């Protein structure tokens, strides 16, 4: 099966010489289309930096990164990074981060609009996703009129809009109660399988581990365990 994400020896360092601090130390990771992977670790373990590197907003210092089968970094960024991020990566945030002045439908239309998909095709795609995520009846409401769970569903619809190769999720369930959090996790589980999208999720939320395919455990900038299968114990005692 095709890999959605392949990272080899990803390193990110700040400073020079003795002041050099390595935040990522040769991280290797891979995710196939349809994988739902949790990235876990204590504060300062490098989760956020890894997310920034995978989200193409922080340039690594060394290593290699392939997203959706295309070389993104091999010593330097490819030039059309912004377009690549627009077309190939979806983002889900802890607090949904919907654009407050756009309705739910317009929030889903936004990534399509940014990639030049407009008109009927865009409207149909947005309607399909909102329906898929069971928020079609909330389409014309502004985010402030939606519940936390509904907002997160609309955010997921927005992330899926351009049919990305990979979705990066940043603590998607942290702001939700257990029931709603599990609901979102099952949704991510379903959409990764049905859409063939790899979902990489940074989380501290151990309640959701049972829903993921693998847990990548980071410690001090390095992968401590490259793929604990869901349900297995997590070394280091970070998750129970």
């Amino acid at each position, binding site marked *: 099966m095709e890999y959605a994400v392949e990272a080899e020896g990803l390193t990110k360092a700040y400073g020079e010489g003795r002041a050099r601090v390595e935040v990522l130390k040769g991280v290797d990771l891979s995710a196939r289309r349809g994988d739902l992977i949790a990235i876990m670790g204590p504060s300062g373990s490098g989760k956020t930096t890894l997310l920034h590197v995978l989200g193409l907003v922080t340039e690594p210092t060394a290593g290699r990164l392939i997203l959706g089968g295309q070389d993104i970094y091999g010593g330097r960024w490819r030039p059309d990074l912004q377009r690549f991020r627009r077309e190939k990566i979806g983002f889900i*945030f802890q607090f949904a981060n919907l654009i407050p*002045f756009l309705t739910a439908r317009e929030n889903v239309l936004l990534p399509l609009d940014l990639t030049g998909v407009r008109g009927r095709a865009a409207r149909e795609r947005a309607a399909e996703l909102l329906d898929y995520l069971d928020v079609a009846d909330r389409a014309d409401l502004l985010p402030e009129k939606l519940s936390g769970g509904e907002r997160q569903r609309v955010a997921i619809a927005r992330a899926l809009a351009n049919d990305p190769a990979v979705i990066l999720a940043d603590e998607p369930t942290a702001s939700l109660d257990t029931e709603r959090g599990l609901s979102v996790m099952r949704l991510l589980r379903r959409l990764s399988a049905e859409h063939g999208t790899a979902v990489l999720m940074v989380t501290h939320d151990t309640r959701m581990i049972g829903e993921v395919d693998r847990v990548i455990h980071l410690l001090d900038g390095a992968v401590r365990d490259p793929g604990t299968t869901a349900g297995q114990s997590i070394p280091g005692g970070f998750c129970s």
Partner: protein
Amino acid sequence: MNLAFKDIRYHRFKFFSSVLGVGLLLMVVLAIGGIIRGVIYDSATIVTETGADLWVVERDTLGPFVETSRIPEDYYHAIEVVPGVAEASPLAIGWEHVVRPPRPTPLAKFMYKNAVAGTQTMVEPGWMDVPAEERFVVIGYKPGRIGGPPALVAGRGIEADDYELVADVKTGFQVGERVRIGYHDYTVVGLTKNMVGFTADPVVYTTLKEAQQILFRPDPDLLRDRRRRFREPFETEAALAPRLAEPLARRAADLAEDTHVVNAIAVRLEPGASPEAVAKEIARWQRLEVHTAPRQVNLQLMGSNRLLILQLSLFRVILVLIAGIIIGLIIYTFTLDKVKEMAVLKLLGAPGRRIYVMILQQAVLIGVLGAILGGALEFAVEPFFPRRVEATYGDVGQMLVAMTVIAALSSLLAVRRAMTVDARSVLGS
């Protein structure tokens, strides 16, 4: 998807209250422009409406509207035979007043109170009370010649010396009203409109002879003194020839009463005649000063109202700058409110251009809507100003262009802020 309009839809109260604020400010800018134009028009009205090509005045003077000019009335006969001159009309011009019970509107009362506020410690109380004296410009002309009222809005014109007036409507005089000016009562027989002097005082027309009586006739004490002084040189002759005493005394009295003086002679040229050439010819042989009509307007404008115009003009520039700064701050605040959304947009791959266009569109929209609103408000309040305010659609058009440019420039600060928004700030923090 137009993000600027979507944002405005969401923040409509904030946006439209900003537009209202900018609109009110631009209303003031436009009103000041209108006041400047009003001053210019007022300064030019008498000269342009007289229809004269040349203004002949006393040597080394700038004209009847700027400084005292007195020349013999009869000079107009001599000027009329200069080649190129079609008509010469002697004019007596001066300021007079009548005392009438003041009838200020509540708005006028408020404006007086407002004007006097803060000045009462410097001047005696009552300094700026509503005045009972109505000032006006008296213009005396020979009926049938240039210099009379240009168009009547009521009543009839003046045909002969019969103590009649044609007054501008701003005097408040009514047709048929009797008005005491100087030593005589005059009947208002007609009304004209928009005829004011450079001080915005309305114009009152009468015949040359009667205007000369109003403006130049000495008061009785001065007349007695003059008669005595004029008679003195003849007294030796009168003693030698007693027969001459009476006629000489009469002649002295006539001389003392003489008012055959005018302030200017308005000259209309024949078609094709060169104003400069004719002016040079008149000035050469009569030792008079001759100003072309445009120069007379300019002298009047730059002599009497120059500092006022420059002051207002500078004030207008300052206000435009303030408007620019305010628009800039509004847009900057709008941008600060959207820093998080901009970070999300950047993370979603929105090109920077898309974000800058959103900021620019909002800035320009505030400027343009503010200019349109300012124009509409200015036209609405124009009639309530005490003196002429002449803003035009052209002014509003200029303001639209200026505000578009200013808004674009003032949004640079916001764009600069938008450029520093880090997409990482919404991811994993």
